[in-house]
């Protein structure tokens, strides 16, 4: 049976390859830092379960030290010239599109297959496992037809990852910070503060505090999942559901979506907001957030009104 371990091994080997190629790239003055950073990430993927909690913690400290000392950088150039790309685009055209669509197609097919036919792969991780299989399939088909040099995908992939840089592990780092916050009881303290700030006797005031609290706390934590239990315990449950008899399904479902509006507006949700800015090589890391605020703010207002209308 295929489990997530298979995906971690694949990711570990990919990062190890990036580290090795980075180490050999003499055009990059920061090649040692890059190699160490991706190498440690490869170690984490391959052997994280055997390092122990403290060992993994030291690994993270090393990653932070490399990034914090500014030892990660990208070599200039390395991309295929635009004219060559344009020439090849005419020649290979729709085949490229086909290969690009292999990944989502396999992810889709595998998700259903692994859920319906038990025993092939861990059904709880069906999509991630299928995504990895899709990557392998796309590489095999693409490299065979394009007759690309063996190392070209790894070299170009490394170039793209170097452009993202340390931001590549930012989402994982923030998720881990959330775990430390939970351990320290940050949520309870924030919930208590918000709970005391609500005017007594106003239904709309309570709904407003709940919706805004979900969005604001999500912005701080970078994740609506972290904000939800806190805001439900502080406002949703005692006030909206118990005191004003709101429908718990509406309060929970739309409250969560109010939190998602917060996700659109915060750099703490790095994988959605900062990573794409790096991937698209935008000048400002906050470009994506700026594009989203105009949707998030009115939608948050709509969500607050929806809770008020539908729950009571």
């Amino acid at each position, binding site marked *: 049976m295929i489990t997530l371990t298979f995906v971690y091994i694949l990711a570990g080997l990919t990062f190890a390859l990036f580290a090795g190629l980075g180490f050999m790239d003499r055009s990059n003055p920061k090649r040692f830092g890059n190699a160490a950073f991706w190498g440690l990430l490869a170690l984490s993927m391959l052997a994280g379960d055997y390092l122990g909690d403290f060992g993994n913690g030291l690994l993270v400290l090393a990653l932070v030290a490399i990034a914090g000392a500014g030892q990660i950088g990208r070599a200039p150039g390395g991309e295929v010239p635009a004219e060559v790309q344009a020439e090849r685009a005419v020649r290979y055209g729709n085949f*490229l599109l086909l290969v690009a669509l292999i990944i989502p197609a396999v992810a889709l097919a595998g998700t259903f297959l692994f859920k319906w036919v038990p025993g092939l792969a861990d059904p709880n991780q069906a999509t991630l496992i299928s995504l990895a299989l899709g990557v392998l399939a796309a590489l095999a088909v693409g490299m065979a037809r394009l007759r690309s040099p063996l190392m070209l995908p790894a070299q170009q*992939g490394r170039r*793209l*990852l170097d452009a993202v840089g340390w931001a590549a592990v930012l989402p994982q780092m923030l998720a881990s910070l*959330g775990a430390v*916050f939970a351990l320290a009881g940050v949520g309870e303290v924030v919930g208590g503060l918000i709970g005391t700030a609500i005017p007594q006797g106003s239904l709309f005031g309570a709904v407003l505090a709940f919706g805004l609290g979900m969005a604001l706390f999500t912005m*701080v934590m970078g994740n609506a999942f972290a904000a939800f239990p806190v805001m439900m315990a502080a406002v949703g449950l005692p006030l909206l559901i118990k005191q004003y008899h709101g429908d718990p399904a509406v309060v929970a479902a*739309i409250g969560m979506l109010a939190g998602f509006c917060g996700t659109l507006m915060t750099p703490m949700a790095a994988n*959605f907001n900062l990573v794409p800015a790096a991937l698209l090589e935008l000048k400002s890391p906050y470009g994506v957030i700026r594009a989203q605020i105009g949707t998030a703010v009115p939608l948050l207002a709509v969500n607050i009104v929806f809770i008020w209308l539908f729950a009571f």
Partner: protein
Amino acid sequence: MLVLIGIAIIIAGFLLRFNPLLVIMASALATGLAAGLDVQAIVAAFGKAFNDTRYVSIIWIVLPVIGLLEAYGLQQHARRLIDRMKGATLGRLLTSYLLLRQVMSAVGLTSVAGHAQTVRPLVAPMAEAAAEAKNDALTDDQREEVKAFAAATDNVGLFFGEDIFLAIGSILLMKGLLEGYGYVIEPLHFSMWAIPTAIAAFLIHGFRLRRLERRMTGKEASA
């Protein structure tokens, strides 16, 4: 109260533009110390969480495929496709992607598309080409905005589609949490109540995409 120091460090650190990885580590240490943990326990807790959330970072395995296809001209091809489709305006293109992403997410196919898988190789270059088709004097800033909107559209589509799916993590979290308080609710009820917001998100973001198109093609924008 003292544990809130971690939040203050995060906000200050981001505002002062220190390296975010350093800021996160400092915040974790300060929060842990304020809660009475010793340094070794904090490092171990952080390490455990880092190891448990490795799945967040496996998306990068798609980069070799994207790198290969881009080296052979995928972005140029995506642009040429848009050039050939006369009806493909920036607004229509991104609105179609928004709808597609919402519908796919609503049936649980959240990882099928994404910033690495679809936005960088396909949606962003297509959006750029669609904007260029109507405005040959596109400035760098406008180009940036079009690309940023391509990524934003992916996020909006994902966030306000996925909660309609019954088995998504957030629905399971809601169900579990409310059950702990004694309210047993079928996942279907949560899914149903995600639909009004999904429609509102489509209307609001779709409207903004139309305005984006006007800004990118209008005369006042290129002045």
